[in-house]
């Protein structure tokens, strides 16, 4: 039994933690928020220099050729520091889409540029404020040209390329477009967490390239979502732990009625419940990490479980961190709201908790027996 990261992976995680601390921790997210930036470009360049954008890219394409587990430990630290960079869009989605489904021409063109930072990728799925399904897609492709509007596209301000889920003659396609193409318009959209930027992307006869087989796009995107769900869950666990640590630290230093507030059971039990939620989520993430890294057929179930569990943990920890801070927690000055807002964005960005619970149960329905622990 070895449900644990290797010493090398733990070392990498430790390095990542030190890196984000040294680079200013939460101050980067706050700076992006206060200055309405698309993201922290300087931090992103340093991440590129560390080689992390090429973690999963094979050495033949100038990447580090490592596995998903290395990505998991970095995700946890990104989540802990609320790093305002397009890592999830570019690395969990765009890069994975190319590695898994791209043809040789696309891979040899773009993968080295993702390593060098010349290319930053993102993805577009949502078209309105409903759950996207294969049948309600309206953005479409005809003769390689895309028309329609995607919304809530993350990081399109920093990204240079984008994967778009579109309706095609064969069903659904994944298509690659150049965000600098004159035929498309990228407009920032207001959102709850301004440490992350979201955009409307309007396509008008925008040229595109097919990723993988035409008609297989919906299957591809479900797989990419499952993979990303595990990595997002690690970010959520990292954020949960940071929020819990912040609540703990405050409960030790704040006095009320002559005592540290952390000595009251009302606070202790609240923090214990946060710890329970984080621990369950973390263990479910380890299961997800195993399924992801071993390419297991259990990935859809493991991903949904990690996702639901981590979404609950981060939302609980971030809201109860505010509560523990009392009035201070409601001020712009204290960092509590950074976690609260990021937890909300991460909870919807891949689809709602309800949608993932439905995925979880749909997978349970297919299972005949469950292994007992």
């Amino acid at each position, binding site marked *: *039994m070895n449900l644990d990261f290797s010493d090398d992976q733990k070392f990498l995680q430790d390095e990542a933690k030190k890196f984000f601390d040294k680079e200013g921790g939460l101050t980067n997210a706050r700076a992006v928020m206060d200055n309405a930036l698309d993201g922290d470009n300087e931090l992103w360049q340093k991440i590129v220099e560390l080689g992390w954008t090429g973690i999963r890219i094979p050495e033949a394409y100038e990447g580090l050729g490592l596995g998903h587990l290395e990505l998991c430990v970095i995700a946890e630290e990104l989540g802990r520091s609320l790093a305002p960079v397009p890592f999830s869009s570019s690395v969990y989605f765009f890069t994975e889409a190319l590695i898994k489904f791209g043809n040789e021409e696309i891979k040899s063109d773009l993968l080295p540029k993702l390593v060098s930072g010349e290319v930053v990728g993102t993805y577009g799925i949502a078209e309105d404020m409903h759950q996207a399904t294969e049948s309600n897609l309206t953005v479409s492709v005809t003769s390689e040209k895309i028309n329609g509007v995607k919304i809530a596209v993350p990081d399109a301000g920093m990204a240079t390329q984008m994967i778009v889920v579109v309706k095609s003659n064969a069903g659904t396609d994944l298509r690659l477009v150049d965000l600098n193409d004159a035929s498309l318009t990228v407009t920032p959209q207001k959102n709850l967490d301004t440490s992350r930027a979201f955009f409307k992307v309007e396509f008008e006869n925008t040229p595109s390239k097919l990723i993988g087989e035409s008609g297989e796009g919906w299957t591809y995107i479900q797989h990419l979502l499952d993979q990303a769900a595990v990595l997002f869950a690690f970010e959520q666990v990292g954020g949960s732990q940071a929020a819990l640590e912040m609540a703990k630290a405050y409960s030790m230093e704040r006095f009320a009625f002559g005592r540290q507030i952390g000595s009251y*059971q009302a606070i202790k039990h609240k923090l*214990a419940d946060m710890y*329970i939620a984080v621990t369950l989520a973390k263990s479910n993430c380890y299961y997800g990490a195993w399924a992801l890294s071993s390419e297991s057929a259990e990935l859809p179930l493991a991903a949904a479980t990690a996702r639901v569990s981590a979404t609950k943990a981060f939302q609980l920890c971030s809201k109860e961190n505010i509560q523990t801070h009392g009035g201070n927690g409601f001020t712009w000055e204290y960092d509590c709201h950074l976690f609260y807002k990021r937890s909300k964005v991460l909870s919807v960005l891949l689809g709602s908790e*309800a949608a993932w619970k439905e995925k979880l149960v749909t997978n349970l329905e297919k299972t005949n027996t*469950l292994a007992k*622990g």
Partner: protein
Amino acid sequence: MDFNDTPEQAKFRAKCREWLEANAELKESKGSGHSDSSLEDHLKIAKTWQQKKYEAGWAMLHWPKEYGGIEASPIERIIWGQEEAKFNVPGGIFEIGLGMCGPVMMQYATNEQKDRYLAPMAEGKEIWCQLFSEPAAGSDVAGLRSKAEKDGDDWIINGQKVWTSGAHYSDFGILVVRHDPDVAKHKGLTFFFVDMKSPGITVKPIKQITGQAGTGAGFNEVYFDDVRIPDSQRLGEIGDGWKVAITTLMNERLAVGDARGCDIEEALILSKTKDDAGEALIKNNSVRERLADWFCEANGLKYTKFRTISALSKGEAPGPEASITKIVSANKLQAIGNFGIDAGDMAGMLIDENDGVSSFQGAWLGAPGLRIAGGTDEILRNVIAERVLGLPQDPRADKGLAFKDIPTKA
């Protein structure tokens, strides 16, 4: 990351398996066991099985070699436990003795006493119980009031213990009592072992909310009326009772306290098979949401356990993650039991004439006890907050007071 044994672990597992296959029968289905037999029969079967294990060296794996164990590592104990659980064998009778009473005797008893008591304990010839909780000392067990008064070379014990598992069939017990009410709570306690057949001891089974009393490893009240214990049966110094009790409880740290009973698997089977107004229950969205929540909890606990085992497997000390197990599993058991009863709709409260209470009804009836036994939900949250997160202790109203001056009523 993988779920495989190391080569040494695989070898040990194969050894366990080989002996078990030669000496016991595999369980035909989950849950089959000896539960239908009378207590007397159950004890007989359990003692025979323990004797068999003892002769083959499987009885007390973790004990030091000088007391007949093989000093098995925590991971080997887990592997043995996993394999033994697959066979139709009795359990639950000797765990308190082998897990708590044996180690405390090894640490504090005289050599003659160790020679006299340890082997029969390991062989299953003599059963031991633990006498700590009292009617007025549950979560605050150091507030116990049973008295010990010195009389020559003996101590005279008066008072009452409660929630003593197996007292009705035990031969010996370990006991904490108060020898001095004039000093602070934790300072006035002394630790003994006692012959449960001593004159003045009365054991009364507790009738639980399940309606059961004195069945299986059930709970008891134990009354002490002028019970004489020789001073030679004192374990540790006079006044060190709390220290000895804590060591005893530390020996049980590996017990993760998973609340057994129906779980997500049973809830899922019921949801798929049970008709609800013409459709399977699982088509109901409120059911689906709860299944998702319980699966996240059950799966989270399962992999939490795997993380603990992984640490042990590498010879590392496990992290504090196992501290969440009982709170989560006991509450989940209560919720799933409740769900199973609700599935019977207007007639859900009825008990089957032939089969008795269903596994869901049993879970619902038993779960309130599991949320209390071995640390209430509230005490366990304090433990997580104080020992895992490092928050300050509650201010204690009894701090610095002599035990006799501690308030007990408004």
